[in-house]
């Protein structure tokens, strides 16, 4: 048995020679072949553009415009002395589907008396934090994280205070942009 394979021989080289005089036409034919290959590749690449854009749409499309949910009229919150819980309608887009859900938020006043909207999701493990009027603080029922009336962390396992949501006032209506934040991190980080 031979120890090494013989070199790869061109196969069927006699085949082409039988139908065309090989030596004469080969350069012309191979130039044409190159031209056709390049042309096909070019047209193919051009046609691939819409296909690639089509496939990449969910990745490249601008994130859906930020949607604002109504919290209530500003007048409603003028004279609040303690955090007020409100349910906001939020809309989530999933391709061609739209999901509506309700999320609780708190309208509170910060130290300067300005309205602030807080997410009710505990920054610890994501339970919804209730306002405990008797003790004048937020106390999470899951692991007893505690926050002051403006949402500042005052005790318990939570890594940071309650998360402030972006808000704006339009024609007397308090609007909030509901967001989800990463839990268990000392720094606030939007995830959706």
């Amino acid at each position, binding site marked *: 048995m031979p120890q090494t394979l013989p070199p790869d021989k*061109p196969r*069927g080289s006699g085949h082409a020679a039988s139908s065309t005089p090989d030596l004469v036409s080969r350069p012309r034919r191979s130039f044409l072949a190159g031209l056709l290959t390049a042309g096909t590749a070019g047209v193919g690449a051009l046609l691939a553009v819409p*296909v690639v854009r089509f496939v990449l*749409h969910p990745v490249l499309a601008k994130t859906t415009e930020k949607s604002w949910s109504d919290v209530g009229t500003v007048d409603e919150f003028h004279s609040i002395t303690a955090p007020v819980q409100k349910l906001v309608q939020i809309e989530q887009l999933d391709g061609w*589907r739209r999901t509506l859900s309700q999320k609780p938020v708190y309208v509170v006043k910060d130290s300067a008396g300005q309205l602030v909207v807080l997410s009710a999701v505990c920054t610890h493990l994501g339970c919804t934090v209730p306002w405990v009027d008797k003790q004048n603080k937020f106390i999470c029922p899951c692991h007893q994280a505690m926050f002051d009336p403006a949402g500042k962390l005052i005790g318990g396992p939570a890594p940071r205070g309650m998360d402030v949501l972006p808000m704006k006032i339009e024609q007397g209506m308090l609007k909030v942009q509901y967001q989800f934040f990463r839990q268990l991190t000392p720094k606030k980080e939007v995830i959706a």
Partner: protein
Amino acid sequence: MNEPGASNRSPESNDSVVARLIRWNDARTGLNSLLHDALDEPIPGGAKLAYVFGSALLFLFLSQIVTGVFLAMYYVPSADHAHTTVSYITKEVSGGSLLRSIHSYGSSAIVIVLLLHIIQTFVYGSYKGRRELLWVVGCILFALMLGMAFTGYLLPWDQKAYFATTVGTNILSEIPLVGNWLKQLLRGGTEMGTLTLSRFFVLHVFLIPALIFLFVAQHIYLFRKSGAAGPVSADPTNPNLPSEPFYPKQLVMDMGFALLIVIFVGLLAWKIPVMLGPKADPSETVFLPRPEWYYIPVFQYLKYWKGWTSIVGILVIPGILGLLLVGLPFLDRSLERRPWKRPLSVGAFAAVFAALGFFGVQSHRQDEKNPGVATQLEKQRQHEEEFMKEPFQPELVGASGGAEPTNALAGKGQTLFTAQGCNSCHGDNGVGTAAAPKLIGVGKKFDSAKLESLLKSPNSAMQLGGMEAVDLKQADLDALVNYLQSLK
């Protein structure tokens, strides 16, 4: 094998990397000889523009596969979602309208090129001389392509798709004895519905394409076996004209024609995107369905047959015509190929085409002449345009199981459910999350008293899962329990 004169150089030395790579590959795959076999196919009488249609069809079929596969990336074949997803493709997805339009115009292009291919084969008498099976397989492919067009038309599930397919499938029930059964089989029931859509989807995307692959392979094999027939003057069994290899001239012509199709279909798809009408509404009673243009002559022809004669019109005449078409190479045994020497077959063939053209024109004229029909068709066209202008409406998905609470107390309970944060573990409307089980149907498991006691003092399994005792006023607790009971 390796003739010394075939190459000036020894293949082992001085060769470029590419040449060595090609040789390496060829030694293992035989690709070069395959290519030679494909490209050096002899064409008696030389390359001709008349021969471009077959490869153009292959090219168009590939284009349909590519665009179709990608359209399926967003399409959902169900009566609930089909229209929304096609609307999403058309109005939202980048390149979606273009891709869908290329797919849609591509189907029209296939019908046109298919007809040209058949006409060329017929006029040149290229079905003669031991080419019966080649012709029969071609006829099967023709039928399969028409099947693709018919099944694909329903998939967008808009008004015209729905009603045109309703009419199209109704024709089946004219067939005696088995007609109604066939119609139900195709529709997946007596009426058009989501099962019809699923069936058409499977036919359009899996079954018919698989058959087309099979028969295209046979068609090409049989074509290569019998060889190209050449011009009308050539003897079909033993062409004695000097031949020219397929490559380069015929290949350049084929590719040129394919490029022409690309440009034409591409421009059309870009400048005049295919429309999508409003979603199918089966309760609509005045909608006038019109099929795709290539089915219009048949649509018109079927109008002429009413009552008992419809069997003749729908079954007997098309059956005879179909048998004549398929059986052509068996019936026409002469080897004469020049069309002017075959007046009977060419005349009959031309007559059928003339009739189809006549029916097409008739249909158009009848629609224009009847004012009621013309206004309705115009109205439908306007509805389509209006729908196209509307922005895309995503489908509203209520959280599942989230029917509106049935009474005020349950409504209050729902508010509490969210306010107390029950939903952060048990999910909106109690659908459940990874953190806690769903509460839908919990009312069947426990009565109100048990639910209340569980809320006040969760059992050990619940406590292990992180469930806290609920501390609420009795009225609120009642409301919450009532809401939990309402979750079904």
